């Protein structure tokens, strides 16, 4: 890998604006994640964390700015004259295939077994042959600690197990970046830990991750960069220790205090930090 490639961020978000009707959700957000970097997005509900993640894989169209993943524009192509052209749905789908996403509500395919959930996209989108896909899926399910659940249906699993399957399903596409949209917010407190453990493992193995979360313990431990969003703008960013322990802005301090009031911030695995 050349030095130029090393310095090239995997995900680059520049001056992105997004509105739903008259509601400005993102107002000039700039974030980037280098290879193997873990970026945690924190902030109150409605601050734009989820929308930012959804823009990165083009589930939402952006109004202004530019997002690239592996130096490729998301959802658009730059023409010879320098103007942008929207990609066809098929082209968008192809680019999205390399961006893994994990949702708050898991969204496992309810009519398929766990194994079928994991191999569906690799076999249908990447055209991996079934045998290889199943072997890979089994490895991934082992890795998230659910090697024995391949034949289970989603409704037979706990929320934590479902979310771990969702992570395995996203990994099956061999993504270059994983986006996590509040992956533990819909979980019972005692199930949060098992999902965070899997995510810690991923971070250790060098996966590039952007995580919207309310788990300050996780952010402190794993994040290379913490970004505090409020009202669609980035209020503060920096290393976890700096933003979480010595926030420079009043608004950040207020937010952290409001979260601390609901759980034990100093614990390695806070379980009630839901804002």
């Amino acid at each position, binding site marked *: 890998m050349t030095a130029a490639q090393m310095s090239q961020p995997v995900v680059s978000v520049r001056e992105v604006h997004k509105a739903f009707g008259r509601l400005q959700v993102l107002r000039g957000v700039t974030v980037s994640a280098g290879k193997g970097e873990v970026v945690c997005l924190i902030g109150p509900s409605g601050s734009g964390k989820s929308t930012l993640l959804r823009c990165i894989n083009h589930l939402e169209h952006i109004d202004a700015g530019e997002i690239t993943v592996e130096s490729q524009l998301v959802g658009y192509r730059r023409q010879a004259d320098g103007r942008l052209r929207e990609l066809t749905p098929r082209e968008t*789908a192809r*680019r999205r295939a390399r961006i893994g996403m994990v949702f708050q509500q898991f969204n496992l395919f*309810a009519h398929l077994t766990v194994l079928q959930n994991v191999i569906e996209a690799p076999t*249908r*989108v*990447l055209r991996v042959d079934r045998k290889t896909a199943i072997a890979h899926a089994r490895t991934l399910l082992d890795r998230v600690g659910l090697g024995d659940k391949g034949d289970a249906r989603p409704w037979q699993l706990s929320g934590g197990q479902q979310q771990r399957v969702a992570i395995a399903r996203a990994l099956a596409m061999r993504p270059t970046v994983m986006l996590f949209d509040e992956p533990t917010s819909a979980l019972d407190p005692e199930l949060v830990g098992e999902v965070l453990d899997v995510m810690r493992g991923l971070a250790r193995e060098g996966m590039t991750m952007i995580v919207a979360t309310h788990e300050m313990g996780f952010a402190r431990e794993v994040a290379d960069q913490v970004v505090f969003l409020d009202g669609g703008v980035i209020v503060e960013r920096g290393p976890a220790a700096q933003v979480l322990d010595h926030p420079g802005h009043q608004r950040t301090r207020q937010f952290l205090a409001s979260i601390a009031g609901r759980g034990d911030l100093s614990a390695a695995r806070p379980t009630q930090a839901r804002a």
Partner: protein
Amino acid sequence: MSVSQTTADEPAVGTPLRARPARRPGRWIASAVVLVVVATFGHTLVVNPNFEWPVVGHYFGSSLVLTGLLRTLEVTGISMLLGIVLGTVIAVMRLSSTPIVATAGWAYVWIFRSVPLLVQLLVWYNLAALYPRLSIGIPFGPAFAHVDANHAITPFVAAVLGLGLHEAAYMAEIVRAGILGVDRGQTEAAEALGMHRMLILRRIVLPQALRLIIPPTGNETISTLKGSSLVSVLSMADLLYSVQIVYSRTFQTIPLLLVACLWYLAVTSVLGIGQYYLERHVGRGSGRPGGAGGRRGPLLSLLRMRPSRRAVSYVAGP
């Protein structure tokens, strides 16, 4: 400790409470009234000679009636197939983001649901008066093949077109409701995995929509079966027309209509049973083992009506 007797470390030791069920005289009166009415009707079935049961028995299995029944089943089956396939296409059209396509889907449903089935059947049957020659070719351009509408539109074709296109309008609404009933998160998850729209529809949304689509489709099949009796006006020899042929000759109107009734009843019952198992099959993965679980057949409901003599028991707390 006085607040709660049952804590986590101290398992509840309750004495089953024996209580006699409440008196419900209304139930007994209502049941008696129903039984008297049913018995009266049953009695007339036996003693009224005008039912002519021997005639019913004679024609029930006759080849003329069975041929008519087969025709009815054919028309119903093919019409439903047409209705389901076309209805799915129209449902997808109505959900399209292209306005012209969505409007076309809406207009189809509007027209074919508004005009009575009998009228539609007559229009198709008389299509030759409107378009004597039917051609296949390029719109506004040359045609490759022609057929004489009078030959192409047989009573059978008219019946299938009339029933099938009418049914498609209803199926379109059923399929659309089914598609909309699937959680949006399923589509988003599939999109995030790089699946494209048609693949998502085929592999993720439609299979899950089936659970919502099948019960009303069962009803539609039954209503198409019964609607197919209208094709007797096109002098197509379906079940009803076949018995009409007989009684116009023998004047045994009632017993022959009874033959038709019994066959419609029989086929509808078989369809109902089939639907039950189909629902159970697609109900897998719905979060409820057995899918259609919790629903009782009429027989089971009847058994349940028997007043329970068992005492109500629960864990009694002091």
